């Protein structure tokens, strides 16, 4: 298993390199003067000064030399500067990433527990009350857009009832206030993700429970809960985990909507504003991060699948 994990990790390196190369070439093609994002704008001086700087910094070197320099700088944590605000990108990210990850992970955990839980129960008690309610909820949940749902929640629980703050992440008041700020965005994300997951988990579990090996398990006379957990659930989890893992990059890259609705200071808002402002360096780095999160997700899928399925673990 350890060998498998190391192998998968090593496989990620060339992929990351390829992606970063594509991103770098993309940056080249935009024709933006690299100096403008390598040097903080207020430090820039006269034209000769800049030309000297250019020579000194090796900006007249061939593309690949510069690419490798860029990569090695990023490896050391130097991501360049935003051309709009002049702030180092590493600083922007350091502030924004925790906010996005916090939201994403909480929503992921809750939607997984609730979605998978209700899905499995709906499958075992097919056409029962929970199955029925779940079906209605899924239709409603899939047809209401996330932003609309978020606005409704804000309207009801923040504006009318005043139970929760309207937006932003932290206002003075410590941990309690932090949780208060999290409730509405996490609820919105969780519910909208639950809808799909629930039905998927249910259908997968139904398929598994109708398979021949479940009948075999029952023919041994083991209790039904063992049949469900040991033989059913474990097999149903394989496809469900794939969906859950790939939620992660979707949550990080696609957090734009939810972060805008809740004025959540995460990566999503940065991606949105940098695209609007044409802040290429920031776009490049965030793109790279989203790509990296997709790689991480597929790595997690590989590991979970291997843990659950001997054919993957022991094969080839």
């Amino acid at each position, binding site marked *: 298993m350890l060998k498998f994990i190391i192998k998968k990790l090593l496989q990620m390196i060339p992929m990351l390199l390829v992606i970063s190369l594509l991103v770098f070439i993309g940056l080249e093609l935009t024709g933006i003067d690299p100096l403008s994002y390598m040097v903080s704008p207020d430090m820039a001086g006269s034209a000769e000064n800049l030309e000297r700087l250019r020579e000194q910094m090796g900006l007249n070197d061939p593309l690949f030399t510069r690419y490798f320099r860029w990569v090695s700088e990023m490896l050391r944590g130097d991501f360049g500067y935003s051309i709009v605000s002049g702030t180092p990108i590493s600083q922007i990210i350091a502030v924004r990433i925790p906010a996005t990850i916090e939201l994403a992970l909480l929503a992921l955990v809750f939607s997984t527990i609730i979605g998978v839980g209700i899905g499995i129960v709906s499958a075992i008690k097919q056409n029962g009350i929970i199955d029925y309610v779940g079906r209605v909820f899924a239709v409603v949940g899939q047809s209401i857009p996330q932003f609309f749902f978020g606005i409704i929640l804000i309207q009801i629980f923040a504006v009318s009832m005043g139970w929760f703050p309207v937006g932003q992440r932290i206002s003075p008041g410590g941990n309690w206030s932090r949780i208060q700020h999290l409730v509405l965005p996490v609820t919105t994300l969780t519910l909208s993700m639950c809808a799909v997951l629930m039905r998927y988990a249910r259908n997968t579990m139904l398929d598994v429970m109708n398979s021949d090996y479940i009948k075999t398990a029952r*023919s041994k*006379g083991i209790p039904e809960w063992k049949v469900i957990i040991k033989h059913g659930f474990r097999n149903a989890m394989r496809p469900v985990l794939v969906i859950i893992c790939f939620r992660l990059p979707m949550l990080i890259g696609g957090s734009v909507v939810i972060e805008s609705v809740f004025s959540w200071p995460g990566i999503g808002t940065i991606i949105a504003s940098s695209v609007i402002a044409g802040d290429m360096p920031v776009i490049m780095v965030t793109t790279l991060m989203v790509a990296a999160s997709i790689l991480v997700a597929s790595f997690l899928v590989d590991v979970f699948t291997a843990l659950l399925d001997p054919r993957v673990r022991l094969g080839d």
Partner: protein
Amino acid sequence: MNEKDIVLSVKNLNTSFISDRKEIKIVKNVSLDLKRATTLAIVGESGCGKSVTVHSIVKLMPKNARVKADYILYNQKRGDKITEFDLSKLEPYGKEMRALRGPDIGMVFQDPMSSLNPVYKVGDQVAEGLLEHNPKMSKEEAKEQVLAMFRELGIPDPENRINDFPYQFSGGMKQRVVIALAMICNPEIIIADEPTTALDVTIQAQIMELMKSLQTEKNKSIILITHNMGLVAEMADEVCVMYMGRIVEFGTLEHIFNNPSHPYTKALLRSVPVLGMEEGRLLETIPGITPNPAELKEGCEFADRCPDCRDECRKGTIPAFEVEPGHKVRCLNFNSFKEVD
């Protein structure tokens, strides 16, 4: 023969499936008795309801199934003590029914490819039932028993193979694992649903011999579902011939082979290879196709394909007639004999 020597007695089993809000009858008024320490074969074309019949008996049915029976009596024998269970009254996955699955009734399912859980080691899957029914047994003891069973079934290198996963086994080897799984708790009744279809002929013979010797040495009883008449001839004491959910002929092996009476049985015997059949004799196919169970009309189910069909065959339900003691035929050709049910 004492009535308690009937280990399993099924009376008027009816099974239907609900699909698209319609109820389709698949098994109709099936009654059968399995005598202790004998083998009962169930034969018939595929789709006639053999698997559904035995799954209904052991109550392993999908949710869209409706099973009714006057009774399904199982007479459990422990030493001299005989306890009677009516399976039709038990909860399918309740405690009592579960206690019988494994130590009393072992099932070999039809498709070995999909009958094993892909994510567990085969040894553990076979041991699971053993450990469930013998709570005091240690894992080591269970492993020893599994190894012994694998050896008996001719699985090579069992010490290593018990740690393999199903995907690492060939079809034939999987089939043996499935058989091991059914036999590991030493059940009174083994229900084997086409247990050897995935095996080549010599292996088939080996496995069947093993089951047969188990049956004779340990007084076990077997219900064997098969297409293979050679296997029937070798294994069975009694034979049920099924057509479209009904038992159309029942008798001892001699009755069925020497005096096949129902037109379907005769056609069936002409259409499948029988051991010792004269060289060069051509196999016939049964004319016509199996009707769709949803579209069956009243009267004899075989009417459309039967060479002897006449008007009264199309009406009502055809009763069974006893053409000689213990030999029953569901066909109006024999209505001069005593009607039985």
